[in-house]
């Protein structure tokens, strides 16, 4: 369950940022998590509720936006969603594709007082 390690890093990042901005209470956090990042949003939620306990992020809304996995075709140039992890171009069948999105794993915004 490496979501635990990921959320711990996330929380460290959030609390550091909060300190930089002199926040005493965090209300809302948004994170972007790609479909190919290997992190499960539900598991992250669960870990966050526990890990934030006793910090200024306790009780905040932790909003995870999942990012669709997409790739662009090296042969015909179109962009397409990756289905079942298979970056095969649906238009020309090309295999030489560049993954565009899906590996995101970052904190996007936060709000607090």
């Amino acid at each position, binding site marked *: 369950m490496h979501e635990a*390690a990921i959320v711990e890093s996330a929380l460290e*990042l959030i609390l550091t940022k909060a300190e930089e901005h002199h926040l005493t209470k965090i209300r809302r956090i948004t994170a972007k998590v790609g479909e190919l990042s*290997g992190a499960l949003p539900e598991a992250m939620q669960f870990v966050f509720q526990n890990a934030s306990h006793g910090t200024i992020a306790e009780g905040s809304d932790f909003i995870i936006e999942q990012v669709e996995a997409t790739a662009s075709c090296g042969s015909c140039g179109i962009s397409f969603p990756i289905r079942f992890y298979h970056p095969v171009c649906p238009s020309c069948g090309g295999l030489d594709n560049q993954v565009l999105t899906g590996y995101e794993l970052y*904190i996007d915004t936060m*709000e607090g007082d």
Partner: protein
Amino acid sequence: MSSIKVVTNILKVNDELTQQNKKLMNEKGLYVINLMSSPGSGKTSILEKVIARLKDEVNIAVIEGDLYTTKDAERIEAHGVPVVQINTEGGCHLDGQMIRNALSHLNLDETNLLIIENVGNLICPASFELGEDLIITVLSTTEGNDKPQKYPRMFEKSGIIILNKVDLVPYTNFDKDEFHKDIREINPKAKVLETSCITGQGIDELCAWLKETISISNPV
């Protein structure tokens, strides 16, 4: 109420540590391999074979990642090469901090090749870069040929993909053609090699590849 645009990678701390480790390892002229697979695919067995063949020509050191035991480190130590054990105490992957600690226990000036055996796990070790020059992923024939499709990330990032335990193919439903086809789709650039630690198949070829790769990256 204030709104802050953060836009920062969650694994930033690991990335920073890894960059520092990478810098140190580069300065010392190390070639670094991150060896990954599911539990029991044969990482340590392959490593033992490679060390036995190469240790007279290359100065090898090993970092062994394991949840709780020192069993793998003991197997490596028996071959007379320096080894550092990292116990992750339940953690399912190695990260930059652990590598940093391990590096401090090795004599880097006397090492050319550092092999890191990651924790047996086909999923998240792929997300934590360790500053390696090469990723080798091992799949064994008893795991089923659908695993690269189901867990593509590690295979996608690999320079070498090893299909181990090919001696057991007759006793499994492993479809080698499907496996090779899937690998070509997921990572057309990877070198793919079939090995058996029982018959020794593929081990010479693996050692030859490694020697070649190391000398290209680290001309004497």
